[in-house]
């Protein structure tokens, strides 16, 4: 009833090509942003910011990275964790080599390294497709993991073999390291993620994004229409890995504070993959929904027993949440294989036609 586009006429192509052509969507986004930028910083607890919102944003960004590759360019990848690792290690090396360089610059540069590595491991995609490609990205995953362990230079030969985040400031305010408050870190990540999401949305609706989707939907036709598969696939790998790399750097620098190689292991790749699947391939909104679902839901599930004074073991809860997520994945695949984003869209369509369900 409230969600109607009737009466909203577009008079220019520019209006019609806006990211959110429907006014209600724009209002909704505005409310979400207002909550994220104003309400949460004012009212949310430290735990909520540092253990729910920060990981949620980091994972959303990583999911966007993977979704660009998988959902938009149609190239399955199981190496997300490793690409995030490249970003994190690059960020660490850069900031320890050049301590005076602004952390923002370091962060943006670190994505470049993971983009480069992404391109190298994307090369086989020119000959290999589908599931076969997914398994070759496993080679990237395991080989890079091995490099993170074996190449001591990457972690400055620390005895612990881990990268430890030094304190970096912006305008005198600590944004990384233990001194940085959850609020500062949250606001920083929120800005980065918001801007990068906007950029992704812009790129995806332009020529480059379209060329990825052409390759995804019908690679032969795309080639016959002048798309060079080499450029399209590698640019998708580069762009996707850039996002993953920045997400990895954010994860270590603004969330964990330190990381060993296990932080980027194969399970991490799967975690991001689940987010993309659950959220919906080929949907940016879906990335956020998927990240919320996979990361926040278990946190809530864990909180339920204590809310009801149920004396359940933490481990039991862990098993149950694993089962619940597994069941939900299958449930979604059966009910709506295109993920939460599609469900959301269907919901909106229903609203639009309500109360006449058969109107189109």
């Amino acid at each position: 009833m409230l969600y109607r586009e009737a009466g909203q006429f577009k008079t220019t192509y520019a209006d019609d090509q806006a990211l959110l052509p429907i006014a209600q969507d724009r209002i909704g986004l505005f409310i979400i942003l207002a909550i994220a930028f104003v309400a949460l910083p004012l009212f949310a607890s430290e735990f909520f910011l540092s253990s729910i919102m920060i990981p949620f944003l980091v994972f959303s960004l990583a999911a966007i990275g993977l979704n660009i590759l998988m959902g938009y360019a149609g190239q399955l990848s199981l190496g997300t964790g490793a690409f995030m690792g490249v970003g994190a290690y690059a960020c660490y090396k850069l900031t320890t080599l050049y301590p005076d360089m602004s952390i923002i610059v370091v962060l943006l540069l670190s994505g470049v390294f993971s983009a480069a590595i992404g391109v190298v491991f994307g090369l086989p995609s020119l000959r290999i497709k589908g599931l076969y490609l997914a398994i070759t990205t496993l080679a990237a995953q395991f080989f890079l993991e091995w490099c993170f362990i074996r190449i001591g230079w990457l972690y400055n030969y620390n005895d612990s073999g881990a990268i430890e985040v030094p304190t970096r400031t912006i305008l005198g305010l600590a944004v990384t390291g233990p001194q940085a408050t959850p609020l500062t870190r949250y606001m920083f990540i929120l800005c980065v993620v918001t801007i990068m999401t906007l950029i992704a949305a812009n790129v995806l609706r332009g020529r480059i994004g379209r060329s990825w989707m052409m390759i995804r939907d019908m690679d032969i036709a795309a080639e016959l229409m002048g798309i060079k598969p080499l450029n399209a696939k590698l640019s998708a790998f580069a762009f996707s890995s850039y996002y993953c790399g920045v997400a990895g750097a954010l994860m270590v620098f603004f969330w964990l504070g330190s990381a060993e190689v296990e932080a980027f292991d194969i399970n991490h790749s799967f975690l991001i993959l689940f987010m993309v699947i659950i959220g919906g391939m080929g949907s940016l909104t879906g990335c956020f929904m998927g990240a919320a679902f996979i990361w926040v839901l278990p946190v809530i599930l864990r909180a339920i027993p204590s809310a009801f004074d149920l004396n359940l073991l933490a481990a039991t809860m862990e098993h149950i949440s694993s089962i619940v997520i597994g069941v939900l994945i299958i449930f979604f695949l059966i009910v709506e294989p295109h993920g939460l984003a599609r469900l959301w869209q269907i919901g909106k369509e229903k609203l639009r036609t309500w109360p006449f369900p058969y109107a189109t």
Partner: protein
Amino acid sequence: MEALSIGLDAFFLAPFRDMFSLPDLLIQVIWEGFVSGVLYALIALGFVLIYKASSVFNFAQGIMVVFAALVLVSLYNYGVPAWLALILTIGVMGLLALSIERVILRKLVNQHEAILLMATIGLTLIIKGAGQLFFGGEPKSMITEELGLSTGSSDWEVFDGIVIFQHIDIAAAVIAIIMVAALALFFSKTRIGRALRAVADDHQAALSVGISLNQIWAIVWFASGIVALVTGIMWGARSDVSFALEIIALKALAVLILGGFTSVPGAIVGGLIVGIGEKLFEVYWGPIFGGGVEAWFAYVLALIFLLFRPQGMFGERHIERV
């Protein structure tokens, strides 16, 4: 220049000198590679069976290995005699296959391969959670001797050295061969087996001659459940039964790349190549890289292989049409 020639020597010649200076060790390395190759091949075989019949890339194969072994050991620990536990475990795997077909596959008929793959990822999470919930996460020892498998070893004196053969490894190889033979017989001699092959070739055609797809799916899942159980017993005997085993199953993916998703001989040959190759590489070349190269060798091998033969070892090159 000199450094380069030393480097080339270290990489291309020295490993072979090492091999021939201790031939008994070389034989041992190849044997160890062969045994782990057999186990990789078994896991890959589980994948192939299911993929052939239903185009489902069963990601849960690895966790099924753990689950089968866990059920067996836990039943024994509850006081069930070993032989009965084995039979009951086979029953449990059958039940699992049946419920997977009923609850999941039947609802996802004709969906895209990627969606079926994801469904098996969901299945993995469920089995993992349920397995730990019911049986606990702590590692358990495999009931090797109780199942009548010898834990001893035999020596073979050769080239002034010895090669040690663990009886359990010999048993693994023999049982694997028997299983592959049994499967081959099943495929070629029985009505259901022939139906399975028909399904693999063409779903529509199979349906039109009155073969129930549901029945066949349940059967292949059951068959790979049994393959998983055998793998679980063998690998469990080599170390222990714990959820860490699941990670090894990922190596079967590299095997599948080499052998192709639908080829039983491919799974076997691929398994042996990966098994023997990685042991040789780790022992003779690993020290050059600081060791631990086994972690990626199989995947990188598969990747390089794919670049030259994208269709796999036994796959046919197909012509793209528009």
